[in-house]
């Protein structure tokens, strides 16, 4: 490593009193350091008082990247976690891009740790080497004799705060290849005692979410939307609305998707909107009902699929099934699902005194929002800033490729003189009915077994509404017509299934569809794992042992999947449920992580099933914050189980039937007795944790219910299939 005093030395001099060291990337991508943040986009900021701030490029929606990325910086820099602060990065797709998304800043697909693991460590390590170099120069000692421990530079008989060397270090060039720690040297990465940095603020009401944006003189906008999907607003009468105190005005959105109601505050906006009489043109509106969508899917499952996903020999599979000793068959249906995050969608736009525009938002994909705003407001992107704030949950919803709600806010803002900030707020009903659902899907699987119970053919047909086709992500995720998100978890399963053929047929969308925590895996894992269970039972085999046969250990993928399956089974006491209870198991790989879950239930479907315990084993590579990984498994399990127990979005003549939580009932505290999570120690690079806990949860529950009752649930939600829950 070589460090040279750069020509930017004057920066340190000018910053000597309130010195700051930033380490981050130059626009060209090179790691660099500076004393101001105008010359580069930093990953870490170090103040003269020794305070270290991690600049978080991912949105915090509960999954923990603010703690996680701060951990990476603290680990390499030599800090304690209680010395760390965090701040969210501005929108800049060149520097803060998700390295797995290309030139796009975004949070999704459980990639925050996977794509940041080296990048943030490098920033921390570079800062460490620069601070040490500056101190070594000042003290006239060898840099190799110095270390940073808990924010203090120590060694060679010296001891000082890193803050003392911020000014000098900011005059140095950042090392191109800072030395990163070996895994054996980690103090914080993998340490289950590391706590979240946002717990206190979220427990005392001081944490600020997007909806907590209150700017001076702001207006609240709510949008009157059509009941029937796709209807357009042609006119409105606001005479009753003008009677509402605080009502300002109403205006047709330029895309005719609704009418913007402007008011002095939220309650006034809600009342004025209720009082508004809108004329809707329904000639091009959606008229189908959920039953029609379901019928279309079922018809498609019985027809020749459009796509043969892997190009497998269908004739050979047909022959294997024709010759099979027994054929196990099941059809599955998965309804539309809403994300229903607790913070209703909202964002706030303001124009600053110097004519720039700032959006305050908890978006998952700032780059797409940034572009949408530039287009609608007819401003260059450089004059638009996105202030990312906490998101009160998202689960994929704050990540529409269309930047849906932000575009609405921008349209509403553009219809004003821009002198007052505009805060767009969805009601819970808006949030529930605005579309962007987990698409409806169907699967039909036929599996042939030989006399020994071994699989000879697996004919798997999928039909549903693609999520990614037609979006900016199409180039990356749609290959030869196959939207990967429709089939992920089936054709790429680690199971080595003989004679497997996967067919896919796209169904025309009746609503806008969107990724929803774990995307395609939300239905594919259910179909695969319920089917595996049915096949194991038909073969007279133990469901765990049977699965392991198809996960032979000579492949790393298979070994890791078998590893979590064995661990979950062992920890759950597989095969020995408590008296009066039954167990079900499922294992699935998603987003690079392997998760097995054993659900133990009591009761019966008729009298009420009680979910007593869920035992989970996860292998997500290096678990940067193991307790966060555990929390994500707990939450992912709850998300998967809750929706599949009793939730669905249905349409009647194009109108969404559900309106609010009373008819889209959230998982409640008493629904799951206990969750126990085991994190597999690993040296593999970190993969995802936000989503992979969700996919195995519902099939494990379904398999447990089948173990007590022989009831096989093919169509979800479970309560509609005849299961009551205690």
């Amino acid at each position, binding site marked *: 490593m070589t460090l040279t005093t750069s020509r930017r030395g004057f920066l340190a001099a000018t910053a000597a009193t309130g010195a700051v060291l930033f380490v981050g990337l130059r626009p060209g991508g090179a790691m660099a350091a500076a004393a101001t943040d105008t010359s580069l986009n930093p990953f870490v900021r170090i103040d003269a008082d020794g305070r270290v701030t991690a600049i978080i490029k991912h949105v915090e929606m509960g999954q923990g990247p603010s703690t996680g990325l701060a951990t990476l910086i603290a680990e390499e820099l030599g800090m304690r976690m209680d010395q760390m602060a965090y701040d969210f990065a501005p929108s800049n797709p060149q520097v803060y891009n998700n390295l797995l998304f290309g030139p796009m800043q975004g949070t999704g697909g459980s990639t925050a740790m996977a794509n940041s693991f080296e990048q943030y460590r490098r920033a921390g390590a570079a800062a460490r080497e620069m601070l040490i170099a500056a101190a070594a120069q000042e003290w006239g000692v060898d840099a190799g004799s110095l270390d940073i421990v808990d924010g203090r530079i120590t060694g060679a008989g010296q001891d000082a705060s890193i803050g003392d060397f911020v000014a000098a270090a900011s005059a140095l060039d950042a090392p191109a290849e800072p030395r990163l720690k070996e895994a054996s040297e980690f103090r914080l990465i993998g340490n289950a005692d590391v706590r979240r940095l946002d717990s206190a603020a979220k427990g005392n009401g001081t944490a600020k979410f997007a909806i907590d944006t209150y700017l001076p003189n702001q207006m609240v906008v709510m949008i009157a939307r059509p009941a029937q999907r796709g209807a357009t607003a042609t006119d409105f009468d606001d005479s009753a609305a003008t009677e509402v105190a605080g009502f300002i005005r109403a205006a047709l959105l330029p895309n005719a998707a609704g009418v913007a109601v402007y008011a002095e505050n939220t309650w006034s906006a809600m009342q004025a909107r209720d009082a508004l009489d809108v004329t809707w043109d329904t000639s091009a509106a959606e008229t189908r009902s959920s039953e029609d969508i379901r019928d279309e899917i079922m018809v498609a499952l019985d027809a020749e699929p459009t796509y043969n996903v892997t190009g497998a020999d269908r004739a050979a599979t047909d022959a294997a099934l024709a010759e099979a000793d027994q054929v196990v068959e099941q059809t599955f249906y998965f309804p539309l699902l809403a994300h229903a995050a607790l913070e209703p969608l909202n964002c706030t736009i303001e124009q600053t005194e110097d004519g720039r525009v700032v959006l305050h938002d908890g978006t998952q994909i700032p780059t797409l929002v940034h572009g949408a705003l530039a287009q609608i407001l007819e401003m260059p992107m450089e004059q638009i800033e996105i202030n990312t704030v906490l998101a009160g949950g998202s689960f994929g919803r704050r990540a529409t490729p269309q930047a849906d709600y932000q575009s609405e806010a921008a349209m509403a803002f553009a219809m004003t003189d821009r002198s007052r900030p505009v805060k767009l707020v969805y009601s*819970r009903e808006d949030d529930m009915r605005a579309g962007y659902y987990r698409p409806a899907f169907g699967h039909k699987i036929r599996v042939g077994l030989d006399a020994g119970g071994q699989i000879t053919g697996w004919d798997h047909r999928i039909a549903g509404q693609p999520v990614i086709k037609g979006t900016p992500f199409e180039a990356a995720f749609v290959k030869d017509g196959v939207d990967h998100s429709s089939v992920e978890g089936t054709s790429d399963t680690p199971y080595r299934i003989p004679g497997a053929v996967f067919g896919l047929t796209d169904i025309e969308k009746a609503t806008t569809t969107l990724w929803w925590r774990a995307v395609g895996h939300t239905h594919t894992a259910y179909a695969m794992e319920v089917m595996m269970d049915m096949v194991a039972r038909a073969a007279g085999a133990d469901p765990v042992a049977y699965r392991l046969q198809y996960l032979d250990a000579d492949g790393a993928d298979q070994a890791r999947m078998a590893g979590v399956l064995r661990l979950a089974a062992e920890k759950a006491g597989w095969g020995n449920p408590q008296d009066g209870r039954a167990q079900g198991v499922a294992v699935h790989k998603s987003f690079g992580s392997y998760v097995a879950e054993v659900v133990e239930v009591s009761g019966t479907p008729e009298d009420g099933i009680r979910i007593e315990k869920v035992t989970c084993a996860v292998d997500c590579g290096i678990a940067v914050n193991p307790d966060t990984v555990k929390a994500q498994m707990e939450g992912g399990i709850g998300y998967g189980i809750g929706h599949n127990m009793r939730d669905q979005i249905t349409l009647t003549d194009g109108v969404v039937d559900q309106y609010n939580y009373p008819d889209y009932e959230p998982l409640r505290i*008493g629904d799951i*007795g206990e969750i126990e999570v085991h994190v597999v120690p690993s040296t593999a690079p970190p993969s995802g944790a936000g989503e992979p806990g969700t996919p195995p949860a519902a099939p494990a529950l379904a398999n447990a219910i089948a173990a007590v009752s022989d009831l096989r649930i093919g169509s979800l939600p479970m309560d509609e299939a005849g299961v009551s829950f205690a």
Partner: protein
Amino acid sequence: MAISLNLNGQTHSVEADPDTPLLWVIRDELKMTGTKFGCGVASCGACTVHLNGEPVRSCQTYLGDVEDAEITTIEAIGEDRIGAALQQAWVELDVVQCGYCQSGQIMSAVGLLAENPKPSAEEIDSYMHGNACRCATYQRIRAGIERASEILEA
């Protein structure tokens, strides 16, 4: 009309219709943002505040009905020994994920521990049923309440 409100020990004069939900007075008028809007129909508990020491859903509580009441929000519940114990437990166990529901969870949990200092798991589940957490942090909410109970006992 001006209505006087006693909130967190301070008196505020609020110009609003008596039918205005307390939630929107707290948030939009007083700019105290710890109390959250989740559903507007008393189905999620994110807006829970205390009225004379009892948890209520502020989205279904109206300004005109609370003029003589003592209202406490999450911003002041840490001054209460039960509130402080819960906040300590919440940090110890990292209960939160997105955190949006947690003000309401803690406000309800204070109500539970005030009337039942050592609740069983079933009693916790029953009392906290109306507080939804979409991140499903329920395991830790239960553990957090049990931990707060221990802290208070010590």
